[in-house]
């Protein structure tokens, strides 16, 4: 580790506000262009309308940017918030941060929900939300020191770009005696060279004596941080207790915390065993149900899928407590110690890998046609070290590999690299090129949407073919689930506000396996309720896993087991106990609906947010190629004959592909109509004036924006 120097260039001393009912009612604004630091009050109306977390982030961003703002303009903001419930020790999943910015991939608001201690530490230091704007002319570190009651901006020299070393160095620098008091947000070298940069959020693992990571991965937020020349944001805070949030009803909070924590501790070992295997249990289940993406989402199953699931990783994960928040009984943030990479700057050295989770396994493994658990570890490690999103990397390289295998691109374009499916060394080399800022990896690092343009323009690739197989929507790469047989999940991805991430709605099994929502109206109802409830976690600073990955023993006997209503009731109690705002489960949905619609309007402000931007590639709906069709011939033939009453006796495979496509694309449009109607949106996907009025977001700028888009009622 090279020595580094921090030179203070701005500082503000403040009196830390008392937290009341989960809120500080203060926001922190840092502009790194002119090194100003401002602390502002948060109005009561803002609190009532936007609740906290993502709601606060979006409100600050709305006021920071114009419709013409691009991701690399100084006024683009990175906002980070916890939420009123965030920082409750012992409540499972109770320590999340939500980050937003205008994305370099989508041009619209991006949001990412991430573990680690930063969000709670920042709140306990005095700020419900922070906003970073401007662009520094030199490398900068921001410190929020709640113990010292100061906010500082430093010019930094000599600090490594390596994310792990950087985080450890700053943790030691700012609290050598109590490193657990420090949480660092940073990115890595590749964030500057690509549009796929992630943020690494740390917590100090006292037992292993090292910093641990969770990622705000999606949408290139790390790229924005790097563009601002902000090397790291550090929060320092001390003791966290049950009273840190000064809850309105401490006894009620203790009661509901104990109920949920104990249930998870008792039932997780009997259910998904996330405290032991994380989310790796999903790999074999997805594979068996034809939902594990294989070779750029062509197929959903591979016979080697069992080699990269829980059976293997359970034995590789380092044993010990792996909660990304204090006292979380889900404790799913596992890692691997003493892993030895076989490529790159860490070749031959022993390193710690935080992960992998399901998404990384599927994206960087099966989707690349690679079923080697150690290769996946190496991809995971270098993505984190270089500051890259493993989902966009996996889906993006899978697209490149299919383009290579189908002759859309060749070795003259890739710098001589064979990028066939299964090529481990060259997949890793792409990452190293992104970190070095050289080679074909620089093109891959622009994301699929840009690659489609570059491949067509410069390499003569077929735009129509790439449109079909390039798994992006709104500019964001798909996360790692096969949706061909689940129309509801096609909607879950296509209608997701930020792009195709599964955090809004995960309906594949309810729809495809259990046929729980046979009509368009059933699907539309699910695509209303689930996104609304899932949004609520991001408003409050929580993780969604404790809601429905470990469920009460009697849940299966309830009317709608997918909603896990008992837990929804506990969350309403949790919210009431902390904030003092009496809340029912229905109230939680209303809170989310307000922010959800506001984000949709925000997309409109940025030039998106209409029907054309909710389209998805045909690969996500059905078979693009003859090989895909023939691999599930029986399924597709049956669909044509039984569901669509088509006589296929004299049809070629190509004719059957075309006929199926026509039907499935029409179904997607019908689904969109039903969802828009359920959500109170126009046929063009814009919230109506009546909807924004009902939700209390009919601000003059919103009304004017709707009117400018022809929406006046």
């Amino acid at each position, binding site marked *: 580790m090279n020595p580094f120097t921090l030179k203070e260039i701005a500082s503000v001393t403040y009196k830390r506000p008392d937290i009341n009912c989960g809120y500080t009612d203060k926001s922190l604004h840092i502009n790194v262009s002119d090194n100003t630091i401002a602390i502002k009050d948060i109005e009561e109306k803002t609190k009532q309308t936007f609740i906290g977390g993502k709601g606060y982030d979006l409100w600050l961003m709305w006021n920071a940017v114009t419709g013409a703002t691009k991701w690399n303009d100084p006024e683009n903001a990175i906002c980070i918030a916890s939420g009123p419930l965030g920082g409750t020790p012992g409540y499972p999943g109770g320590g999340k941060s939500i980050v937003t910015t205008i994305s370099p991939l989508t041009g619209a608001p991006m949001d990412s929900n991430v573990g680690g201690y930063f969000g709670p530490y920042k709140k306990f230091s005095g700020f419900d939300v922070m906003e970073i704007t401007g662009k520094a002319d030199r490398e900068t570190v921001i410190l929020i020191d709640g113990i010292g009651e100061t906010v500082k901006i430093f010019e930094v020299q000599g600090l490594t770009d390596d994310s792990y070393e950087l985080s450890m160095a700053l943790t030691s620098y700012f609290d050598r005696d109590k490193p657990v008091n420090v949480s660092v947000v940073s990115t890595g070298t590749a964030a500057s060279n690509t549009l796929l940069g992630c943020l690494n959020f740390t917590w100090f693992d006292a037992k292993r004596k090292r910093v641990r990571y969770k990622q705000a991965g999606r949408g290139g937020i790390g790229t924005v941080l790097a563009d601002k020349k902000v090397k790291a944001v550090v929060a320092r805070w001390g003791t966290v207790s049950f009273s840190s949030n000064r809850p309105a009803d401490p006894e009620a909070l203790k009661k509901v915390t104990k109920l949920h924590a104990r249930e998870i501790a008792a039932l997780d070992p009997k259910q998904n065993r996330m405290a032991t295997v994380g989310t790796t249990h999903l790999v074999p289940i997805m594979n068996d149900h034809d939902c594990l993406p294989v070779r750029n989402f062509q197929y959903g199953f591979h016979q080697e899928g069992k080699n990269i699931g829980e059976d293997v990783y359970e034995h590789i994960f380092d044993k010990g407590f792996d909660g990304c928040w204090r006292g979380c009984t889900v404790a799913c943030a596992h890692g691997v110690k003493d892993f030895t990479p076989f490529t790159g700057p860490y070749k031959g050295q022993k390193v710690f890998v935080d992960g992998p989770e399901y998404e990384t396994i599927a994206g960087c493994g099966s989707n690349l046609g690679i079923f080697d658990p150690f290769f996946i570890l190496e991809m995971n490690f270098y993505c984190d070290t270089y500051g890259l999103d493993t989902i966009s990397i996996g889906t993006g390289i899978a697209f490149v590999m299919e383009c290579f295998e189908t002759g859309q691109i060749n070795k003259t374009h890739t710098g001589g690299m064979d990028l066939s499916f299964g090529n481990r060394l060259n997949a890793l080399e792409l990452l190293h090129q992104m970190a070095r800022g050289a080679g074909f990896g620089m093109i891959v690092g622009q994301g699929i949407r840009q690659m489609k343009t570059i491949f067509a323009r410069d390499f003569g690739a077929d735009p129509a073919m790439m449109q079909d197989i390039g798994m992006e929507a709104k500019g964001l790469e798909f*996360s790692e689930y096969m949706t061909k047989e689940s129309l509801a999940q096609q909607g879950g991805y296509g209608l997701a506000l930020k792009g195709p991430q599964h955090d809004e709605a995960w309906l594949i*099994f309810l729809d495809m396996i259990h046929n729980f929502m046979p009509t368009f109206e059933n699907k539309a109802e699910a695509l209303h309720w689930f996104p609304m409830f899932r949004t609520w976690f991001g408003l409050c600073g929580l993780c969604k896993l404790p809601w429905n990955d470990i469920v009460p023993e009697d849940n299966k006997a309830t009317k709608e087991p997918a909603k896990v209503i008992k837990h929804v009731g506990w969350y309403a109690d949790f919210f009431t106990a902390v904030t003092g705002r009496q809340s029912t489960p229905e109230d939680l949905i209303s809170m989310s609906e307000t922010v959800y619609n506001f984000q949709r309007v925000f997309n409109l402000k940025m030039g998106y947010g209409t029907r054309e931007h909710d389209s998805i590639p045909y690969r996500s709906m059905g078979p693009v190629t003859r090989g895909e069709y023939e691999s599930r011939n029986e399924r597709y033939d049956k669909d044509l004959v039984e569901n669509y009453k088509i006589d296929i006796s004299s049809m070629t495979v190509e004719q059957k592909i075309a006929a199926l496509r026509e039907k499935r694309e029409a179904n997607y449009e019908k689904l969109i109509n039903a969802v828009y109607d359920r959500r109170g949106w126009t046929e063009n996907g814009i919230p109506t004036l009546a909807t924004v009025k009902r939700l209390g977001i009919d601000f003059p700028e919103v009304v004017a924006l709707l009117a400018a888009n022809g929406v006046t009622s």
Partner: protein
Amino acid sequence: MILVDDQKMEWFETMTVEKVLERMENTEFCAAVRLNNRIVSSPNFSRTLVPDRSIIQILPLIAGG
């Protein structure tokens, strides 16, 4: 005898996971079980034999990542 979610169930020679679930209530949303600590998914229920003295845990509705 086998144990299914901590409840005893009489074992028989041709017992499959599918037959175990048929004897249970509210299992229509069951897409996977743990049979002696190994995941068995629904496409394999009918062909997976359950040995005597097995321990089965019915996994909750799969909820995604």
